């Protein structure tokens, strides 16, 4: 079997997977921060809305969400391109889990830090953006890293709404060649390579967020 003929297809599929993954991570992170902050600072109404959002998207099947947005939403007159649908649903998923990460990290900022901010007469926004969030972001990084890799793997579900991602392409090639062993091995390797790239990118971001030694472990006193 001549793989060189299929290589461009596989690369193109991997490109689609990477695009969808990155786009949904970026959009999802924005949602995560927005809803996570609302959970902590939003007051009764907004924090309840944020809670409902996170629980709905965490508590239902991602595949069914995809089907719902792809097949059911057009029935009420709202339809998007498959790729847009895929990105939106994955982003909402990242947003739901990410909001919990943001909420948890914000709640883990010590009361003493908040009291210091109050003693210096910071207002709520200054306390949030100058004191709490910069410390919380460092706490969030490992969990967001996991979520990013999870998202890469979950993105294979978009193949079921006819998006030509890596998994969809692999299925097509298998249907042509009937060589399941080779094509799925190659596909796994591709996913692994992409998740390695993601992991490295996350490490770099984490390093930047920590600004090298902002939080050195070897504090002496």
């Amino acid at each position, binding site marked *: 079997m001549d793989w060189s003929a299929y290589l461009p297809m596989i690369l193109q599929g991997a490109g689609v997977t990477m695009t969808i993954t990155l786009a949904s991570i970026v959009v999802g992170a924005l949602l995560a921060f927005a809803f996570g902050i609302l959970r902590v600072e939003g007051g009764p109404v907004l924090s309840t809305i944020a809670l409902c959002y996170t629980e709905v998207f965490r508590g239902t099947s991602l595949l069914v969400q995809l089907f719902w947005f792809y097949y059911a939403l057009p029935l009420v007159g709202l339809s998007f391109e498959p790729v847009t649908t895929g990105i939106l649903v994955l982003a909402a998923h990242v947003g739901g889990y990410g909001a919990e990460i943001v909420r948890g990290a914000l709640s883990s900022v010590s009361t*003493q*830090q908040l*009291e*210091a901010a*109050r*003693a*210096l*007469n*910071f*207002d*709520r926004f*200054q306390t949030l953006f*100058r*004191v709490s969030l*910069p*410390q919380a972001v*460092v706490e969030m990084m490992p969990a967001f890293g996991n979520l990013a890799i999870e998202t890469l793997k979950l993105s294979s579900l978009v193949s079921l709404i006819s998006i030509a991602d890596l998994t969809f392409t692999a299925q097509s090639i298998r249907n042509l060649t009937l060589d399941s062993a080779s094509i799925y091995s190659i596909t796994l390797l591709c996913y692994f390579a992409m998740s390695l790239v993601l992991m490295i990118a996350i490490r770099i971001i984490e390093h930047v967020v920590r*600004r090298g*030694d*902002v*939080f*050195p472990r070897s*504090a*002496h*006193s």
Partner: protein
Amino acid sequence: MNEKTDTPLIEFSDVTKRFGILTVLDQFNFSVAKGEKVTLIGPSGSGKSTVLRILMTLEPFQEGRLTLDGTSYHEPGGRGRFQASERHLRQIRNHVGMVFQSFNLFPHMTVLRNVVEAPVRVLGMQREEAEVRAIELLQMVGLADKKDQYPAQLSGGQQQRVAIARALAMRPQVLLFDEPTSALDPQLVGEVLSVIRGLAHEHDLTMLLVTHEMRFAREVSDRVCFFDKGRICEQGAPEAILGAPKHERTREFLSSILG
């Protein structure tokens, strides 16, 4: 500012503070004149730190009246735990600063930014001006050379001196010290005390200090108040309270901590 020294700057009248069913301050009366340096001593749980925390608006109180320079902490018709709007509380906080037992520096900011951030963000000071002043304050506490370091790179004593500079940068009328040396290794206590001792000569600065350092209390304070069970049991000149306490409880307490 009210210049008459007979009008107290801080006045607690019958203030009662409860945590659930626990009464921490019980119809508490206490006043402090402008520029006065007062040390609060007493067993743990006697309410002395709570007095500072109420003054800093970190804790609400349920009954009674507290005024700072004539302004009541409770607003007429004020709502919420503090019975006052956030705006009102922020006006009060403008005049009060606090140094904490555990320093509470911002770990993600350099020493300089720790000192500069609030004057720039809260007081709207120009950054250059705030930095010049911050460096003066850091010189005063002997740490100007550490301005680009992060808190975790400093010793506890150094962190506490930065925290004092940070509080002073907001130019408070009242500076509260909540056991500022209790979290420090014994050999680091001296450097922090000597900074506070320097401040004791600032004529206009009103200082309230909760501490277990009795010798130091005697040196810096105009008045020592012994707390017991949510009230001031005995107060007076440091020599009187620490040298010849009248109350049995004060004598017990002093002998327990002096070993």
